[in-house]
């Protein structure tokens, strides 16, 4: 409440002095104030909601991470003792079990994210490029490709759970019963294979987005470039390398970043796939943090881990943007 009033009062005050110099200019002034203030006023609800939905919970989370918020205190947060950096120390002490588990989960997540984003981008881009040529049924295929992206996450992932089941699942039926690729039915939802199950679902769910964005990007590349290149004797591969990919660069820059953030933070997919206790091989960090909070009922440590995750993602994003935009500047010069 205090934050919101402060924000609205603040913007109100700022709007007035800005326009006061114009006071001498005459009778048109009230109209001008309104015209200038109106956009800000219209933005106000969005700004306040943004504060409420994003920033306030984040600040509370950071606040919690400095408290010893265990089952003995959750009923009345005020009484929870301050614990300084203890929660952080526990989280990053990699020789102790909690820190070791967090590090393991972090590494699994990094590996998973790199593979998933890479595959999503590759499949999405390849499909978008193939879909550039006009042929019968192109519209239908495009629509079909977008289905995984449009499906509600829960419905889609629970279907995968059924398909991955050991006894009656479709995957084992095809791989084992029909193609005889394995000696005996494999487990996909427990044990080491769970990593591949998770990767499959994640790529299946993520690549249509890459497809959509790259397809939009391809529309902006002028056809004359290809014609000119073809006249100069460039093959398909060269056209792809010299024209398509460089032209897609700004699109890819955003696409890869967004895919990375979504995949790294993905909670729904592993949670629906494995329930609250994910197998070690597929112990993604978001579920791990959830589990750490609810296993020990120590929400302080859980918050500390979340803040560390936030910091890591901020650093990665910052470095990524710095590197990619610098690269572009030099390319432009």
């Amino acid at each position, binding site marked *: 409440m205090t934050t919101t009033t402060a924000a609205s009062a603040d913007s109100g005050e700022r709007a007035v002095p800005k326009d006061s110099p114009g006071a001498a200019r005459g009778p048109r002034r009230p109209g001008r104030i309104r015209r200038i203030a109106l956009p800000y006023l219209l933005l*106000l609800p969005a700004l306040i909601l943004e504060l409420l939905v994003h920033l306030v919970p984040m600040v509370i989370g950071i606040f919690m991470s400095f408290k010893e918020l265990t089952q003995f205190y959750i009923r009345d947060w005020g009484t929870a003792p301050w614990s300084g950096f203890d929660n952080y120390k526990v989280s990053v002490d990699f020789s102790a079990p909690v820190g070791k588990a967090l590090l393991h989960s972090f590494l699994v997540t990094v590996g998973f994210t790199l593979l998933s984003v890479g595959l999503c981008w590759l499949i999405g881009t390849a499909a978008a490029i193939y879909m550039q040529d006009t042929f019968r049924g192109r519209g239908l295929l495009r629509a079909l490709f977008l289905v995984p992206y449009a499906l509600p996450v829960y419905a889609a992932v629970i279907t995968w759970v059924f398909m991955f089941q050991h006894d009656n699942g479709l995957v084992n039926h095809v791989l084992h019963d029909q193609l005889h690729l394995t000696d005996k039915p494999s487990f996909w939802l*427990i044990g080491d294979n769970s990593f591949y199950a998770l990767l499959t679902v994640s790529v299946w769910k993520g690549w249509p987005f890459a497809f959509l964005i790259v397809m939009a990007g391809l529309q902006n590349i002028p056809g004359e470039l290809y014609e000119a290149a073809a006249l100069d004797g460039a093959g398909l591969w060269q056209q792809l390398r010299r024209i398509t990919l460089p032209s897609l660069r700004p699109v890819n820059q955003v696409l890869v970043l967004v895919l990375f953030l979504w995949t790294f933070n993905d909670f729904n997919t592993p949670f629906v796939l494995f329930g609250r206790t994910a197998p070690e091989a597929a112990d993604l960090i978001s579920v791990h943090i959830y589990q750490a909070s*609810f296993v*020990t*009922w120590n929400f302080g440590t859980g918050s500390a881990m979340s803040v560390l995750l936030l910091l890591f993602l901020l650093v990665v994003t910052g470095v990524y943007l710095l590197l990619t935009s610098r690269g572009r500047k030099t390319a432009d010069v």
Partner: protein
Amino acid sequence: MRRIRAAAAGAVTVSLLTAVTACGGGSSTGGGSNDSPKTLTYWASNQGASIEVDKKVLQPELDKFEKQSGIKVKVEVVPWSDLLNRILTATTSGQGPDVLNIGNTWSASLQATGALLPWDASNFAKIGGKDRFVESALGSTGAQGKDPAAVPLYSMAYALYYNKKMFADAGIAKPPATWDELIADGKKLSKGGKWGLGAEGSNPSENIHHTFVFAKQHGADFFTADGKPDFTSDGTVAAVKQYVDLMAKDKIIAPGNAEYAQNQSVSDFAKGKNAMLLWQSASANLKSQGMSDDAYGIAPVPVQSGTPGTGTNVNSMVAGINLAVFKNSHNLDGATKFVKFMTSDAEQKILNTAYSSIPPVKTAQTDATFNTPANAVLKDTLAKSAAALPQVADESQFETTVGTAVKTLFAAAAAGHAVTTESVKAELEKAQQQMPAK
């Protein structure tokens, strides 16, 4: 111009509204009151075959209560997978129900949060006194030496359900009484795509319930007398290994059961894929899956040797549901009246019959309904050979960590890896390290 002004006014109003609703989120974390004496919110756990079944069972009773007391009860049946998290959230926000069902094993953990109304002598007096309840059920209502955090509502015990026809076909005359017999029978039954026993390998709570009993039979406990976790003693390791070995070494549980967590083993039993099942109050569930009452028999859970009793011959946990009152309810008197109603003899008979459980109220237990052969087994077990899970504040953490360790071991067994004393000990050690340090 007027339109702009209207738009601006609208924008400001929306902003203010959101700010106001944000204020509504916080709440008092203080004590309860009697501000709204005409309504109650009740969170019921899912006891019947489905949430709809539960609503049908409960609604007529709640109407009865409304007629008697003039208090309207709004019931919400919460699935087991959500119940504990919902209670934790309610505790944190202070926005909870007035009355709620809790799994009796959580009593001490939830007691530690201070969110539940303690049942001291004066509160118990309002519902007819502590003596109305069976001793073993009261043993699962909170930490020793503290006022109970809840009162018992339904009692249950584990039993061995066996398929009569499959037993007859395999030439087995009577249900096994010891684990050796169970394994021998299981081997006769495990053939042709059918298996001896079912298990819920990926359900941490089920894993805990079984390993707890095995530990008791090995003379071990998961917590020391002063409430410290002690997961790696020889007894507990042997207990966990014996349970997982039913799949790993004895091969009487189908490997696929390692990923079961949604009561698939009950469906398998109803369909005749498993000949035996260790379960609590399965009758109503089996009926809803089309298995008739005379198709299966109910026997006590096996022991290592001899007959079920106390000490190392314990063969079940004290399973059950407790009824608790949220401390910051706005209708404390009404909530207490509702608890009195739900634990009255008449309601106990109706509800426990509907859920095929045993009433924890002494006077209700004598009713003929609870003396059928099937119920006699459960009642006997509860009275003579059931033990309460540790009543310590860390109990729910223990359920998750050790339950998950057993899940991991089942996964290893299913994948064909060896399950050894060392690997069991390593998993349990990891579980113990995750327990909150004090």
